[in-house]
């Protein structure tokens, strides 16, 4: 008789686009439950592994909205490779803090920061190196660019909320966040 097979680990990729990595920090706040999680999943691209490109995955987790062309490319790579894509945190869901610039003119903002503001070295200009990703006119939530399957709100979502959501999902249940776990702030 064969020994019972352990189910294959789920592959999970994570990244932060126009975010502050606060949601990733909150993810680490699941603390020792990370060890339990690591029995169920292995990480592909993620700040935890430093893998640069996302391969085929079961779950992709995106922090932050899209504020530049590189964000859009990364997001599309995740969508192409991840069976389930999750928006993690306020910025991924509605643009969040970076989207506060959306009612301002992009050129005016860049010139104020890099050229006209006081305290800059003389001759300072808006950077235009072709290596730099082009900034989008407005910051957008990620579901406006690709299909997103699940959303975990919060700024950041608490470690408990992330744990509850992911364990519901891995168990094959519709994720629920009750009072105290669902937060927009």
């Amino acid at each position, binding site marked *: 008789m064969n020994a019972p097979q352990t189910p294959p680990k789920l592959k999970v990729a994570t990244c932060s686009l126009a975010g502050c990595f606060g949601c990733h920090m909150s993810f680490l706040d699941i603390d020792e439950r990370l060890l339990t999680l690591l029995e169920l999943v292995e990480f592909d691209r993620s700040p935890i592994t430093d893998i640069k490109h996302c391969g085929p995955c079961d779950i992709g987790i995106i922090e932050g909205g899209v504020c530049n062309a590189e964000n859009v490319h990364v997001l599309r790579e995740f969508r192409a490779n991840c069976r389930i894509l999750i928006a993690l945190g306020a910025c991924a869901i509605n643009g969040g803090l970076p*989207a506060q610039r959306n*009612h301002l003119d992009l050129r005016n903002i860049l010139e104020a920061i890099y050229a006209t503001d006081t305290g800059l070295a003389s001759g300072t200009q808006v950077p235009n190196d072709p290596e730099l990703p082009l900034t989008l006119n407005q910051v957008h939530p990620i579901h406006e660019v690709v299909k997103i399957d699940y959303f975990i709100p919060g700024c950041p979502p608490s470690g408990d909320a992330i744990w509850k959501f992911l364990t519901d999902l891995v168990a094959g249940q519709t994720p629920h966040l009750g009072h*105290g776990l669902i937060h927009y702030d």
Partner: protein
Amino acid sequence: MMSATFTIDGQEVPFTPGQSVMQAALSAGVFIPHLCYHPEFRPHGSCKLCTVKVNGRPATSCTLPAAAGMDVESNTPEILDKRRALLQMLLVEGNHFCPSCEKSGNCKLQALGYELEVFTPHFNQFYPDRPVDASHPDVLLDFNRCILCELCIRASAEVDGKNVFALSGRGITKHLIVNAESGKLADTNFALTDKAAQVCPVGVILEKRVGFAVPIGQRHYDAAPFSAHVAEFKPTPESQGERS
């Protein structure tokens, strides 16, 4: 004597003649989601969050007079889905950034989002450009969060007798304005003690210099969800038709 009753999701609810479905429900401790309803004011029927199905037809429970034998559906997957869609449309029409909002934790729009498990605004964001009015010494107006419930308009006109606020424009351009030639709140006789300063369900009318004074965990909707505050919304003499 309260002998007449109707049912909400099968539960029998008594009512007195003249009460709306909302008033009877709240009096009986049955929560119906709402934003533009306020127990001290006549119903407005604009936010549609209190939509229920009465004998199979949708109606706003805040404006519908209760009648004996009504069969009201409220807490059903179909109605809850419609309420979620309404909330999502409100969320994308304005600029609702809870992390930087002083009203967070005390906001009915946010609390209702939690109550209905709205994980995402779903629709594309409008990101409207709505400059704030910080002219008044005691009160900040942040129009980014206005949901056009007209509670401040009703309070200013009916209680304060000042008519400080109004809505202007039509359809998607409709917006809250201040009744002064300059359009600035500082050029009205608005005061922090006005009823209109107390009724905003979201974070438009904010007292200055007290923001974030109450820590997370102690705010109005931190301990218990919106639906657990049902006693706060019970009808008052004013809402029973005494104020006109």
